[in-house]
């Protein structure tokens, strides 16, 4: 962990130079400059869609800017050129109206497919209700009699006070750790019912591929199937007041049997948010990895 921070610190100078070289990706970690592929089929599809459209715009950009810079270098008065007189060409204008239209249709087809898929919340195997509050999240496992609130972890909360004097880099998972994680099973079709208690929030988990607004008085539905166990971190994405930046989301995706055990323990009133032996498995793992 400390090693990583040191490297990041050292990276400042390198990054500045890197920017001058138009941000050569080799200098930077891709996860710091591009969208995550995430851990669901939808997030992968969204990533692919993003890269496809990005590539198309880059190709068009190269064409347009290529022509523009060619013109800037060749067609300048200082080279003694005489300006041409032409001022329109119906044929050319029709081509560059119709051609973009065709490209757009090509983009719209896969986008429509993904959108239709994401909209279908049927056939879910379990449901979790998410409620946004100023400024924390509430989770309720529907029909399981398990519910709890999830707040910014204390060490981050202390460090983030104005002039706290604590270096954020010294706090593990600064601003993206919570006291109680949302524990979810992998390979399960989970429906989320998202709402809010006070103002509008937005529940955003980049690794699931989407965000959805939490609106007081209304319930928004969406779904996911997490494919890999792990700890995933997200944030509130809709401005919700003073501490909008301080209500992170942490999802811990575990195997189904582990999830069942966790759920049973919650129902029995066990220590919240921890695994069977009373320690937080994922955090313990992270500490180990850091050593």
């Amino acid at each position, binding site marked *: 962990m400390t090693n990583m921070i040191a490297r990041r610190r050292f*990276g*400042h100078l390198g*990054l*500045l130079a890197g*920017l001058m070289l138009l941000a050569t990706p080799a200098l930077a970690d891709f996860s*710091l*400059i*591009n969208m*995550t592929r995430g851990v669901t089929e939808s997030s992968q599809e*969204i990533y692919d*869609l993003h890269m496809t*459209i990005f590539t198309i*715009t880059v190709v068009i*950009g190269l064409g*347009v800017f290529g022509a*523009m810079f060619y*013109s800037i270098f060749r067609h*300048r*008065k200082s080279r003694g*050129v*005489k300006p*041409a*007189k*032409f*001022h*329109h*060409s119906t044929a*050319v*204008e029709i081509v*560059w*109206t119709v051609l*973009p*239209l065709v490209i*757009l249709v090509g983009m*719209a087809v896969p*986008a429509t497919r*993904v*959108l239709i898929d994401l*909209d279908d919340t049927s056939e879910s195997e379990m449901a979790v209700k998410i409620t946004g509050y100023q400024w924390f999240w509430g989770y309720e496992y529907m029909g399981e009699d398990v519910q709890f609130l999830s707040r910014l972890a204390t060490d981050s909360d202390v460090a*983030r006070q*104005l002039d*706290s004097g604590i270096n954020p*880099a010294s706090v593990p998972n600064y601003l993206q750790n919570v006291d109680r994680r949302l524990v979810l099973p992998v390979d399960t079709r989970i429906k989320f019912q998202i709402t809010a208690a006070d103002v*509008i929030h937005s529940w955003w988990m*980049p690794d699931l*591929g989407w965000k*959805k607004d939490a*609106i007081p*008085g*209304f319930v*928004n539905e969406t779904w996911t199937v997490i494919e890999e166990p792990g700890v995933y971190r997200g*944030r509130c994405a*809709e*401005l919700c*007041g*003073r*501490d*909008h*930046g*301080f209500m992170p989301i942490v999802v811990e995706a575990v195997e189904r049997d582990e999830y069942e055990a966790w759920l049973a323990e919650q129902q029995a009133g066990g220590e919240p948010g921890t695994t069977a032996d009373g320690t937080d498995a994922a955090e313990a793992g992270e500490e180990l990895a850091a050593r």
Partner: protein
Amino acid sequence: MTATTQDHAHHAEEPTGFKRWLVTTNHKDIGSMYLLFSLAMFLVGGAMALVIRAELFQPGLQVVDPYFFNQMTTMHALVMIFGAVMPAFTGLANWMIPLMVGAPDMALPRMNNWSFWLLPFGFAILLSTLFMPGGGPAGGWTMYPPLMLQTGTAFPFVIFAIHVLGISSIMGSINVIATILNMRAPGMTLMKMPLFVWTWLITAYLMIAVMPVLAGAITMLLTDQYFGTSFFSAAGGGDPVLYQHIFWFFGHPEVYILILPAFGIISTIIPAFARKPLFGYSSMVYATASIAFLSFIVWAHHMFTVGMPLAGQLFFMYATMLIAVPTGVKVFNWVATMWRGAMTFETPMLFALAFVFLFTIGGFSGLMLAIAPADFQYHDTYFVVAHFHYVLVTGAVFAILAAAYYWMPKWTGHMYNERLGQWHFWLSTIFVNVLFFPQHFLGLAGMPRRIPDYSVQFADWNMVSSIGGFGFGFAQLIFVWLLYKCIRGGQKAEARAWEGAEGLEWEVPSPAPHHTFDTPPVIR
């Protein structure tokens, strides 16, 4: 003839000093006031942006409280949109439209005076809210309820200020339309008008259509707060998302209000310095009209994550993607105008070329944002912030700067200092990209917008972005100095200050006399 003589006698009695500016009905004076006011607001809004970038320079909170940070993001947007960009375009319209269509003044000169003088009062109210108990508005410039209803004492003042600014914009638009439709010199048919006039005509219609919608939305906020209505409260049978629909029905045409006159400026400057007529004049007009039409049916692309029905998401995605077609036509036309021209690269041309390049990048990210499923990731992140700053700063603001350099000789009678202009251009262009380009990365990597503090993986690019922000901000002081020098003196400008400049404004002397086209010019 007698009438003319009396007119001149009347003009000679015009007051001097402060009273001249207070009671003026002259389009040039009012245009100058609009432009200087806009420059002042650009610096005020810019100072707020620097507070934001100072806080975001590194993780942790070092400079301001999160609530004050939210006030800064909210006010920065309101000041830049309503105080800097819109008045700058209105100022350009005031100065240039009568000169371009061969009219002696704006059609409604007294209303013109009033629509300007509302602005300082509107902004005095808006900025004073920062000092009220509970601070200024902190719910974002979009003012979404229920959050906006948590604003303190400032709440009704903010709404009143926006009403005042809206009235000013509507009157400005009425004036522009009345001038263009009634006061063109004989022979200047609509399809002979300069593109700046065309784009402003369309913009003015957009403003008249949507400013009242904004007024309606914020009035509903006001009644929800004080008069027991529940337009936007589910508890009383309303819906907070209704506000967003109404707001963005205003808000999307609004972003075209902020860019269409820029298209007109660029379409004026590129032909002048390429010494070649604009490619595809009529397709430019049709493309502008198409964009204006489409702007009314794409609003909900700002709301893909609110939980709209699938059919709604699909409709707004397709409609939004369509905007790429007329916008593409414009970019292609500009490049075709440069093609086989004989270009020189004075400061206005440099800003215009940077506009074409950087605005197009903003257009590309806009196209990406239009793709609804991908927007589920992009929405409300720094990717969006990067996008709209590319279209508004390197788009609208660069176009305004290009226009200021291009017409400054006509306004002041002096050539500006080209060397300083080049410095201003290059520093602005380099730093603005250092400022905004990394914000694409931040957004894609997962940083939401409107947050005062962030987790440490975002530290590097935020630091780069802040360095760019301060560089860009201080580079603008070069412009202030250059403008001051140019007003005070400098090389005398000829009537036609630029070799390739076309249009009626270059037929009158530089500086343009106080009254021009008392008799209409002859249009060839």
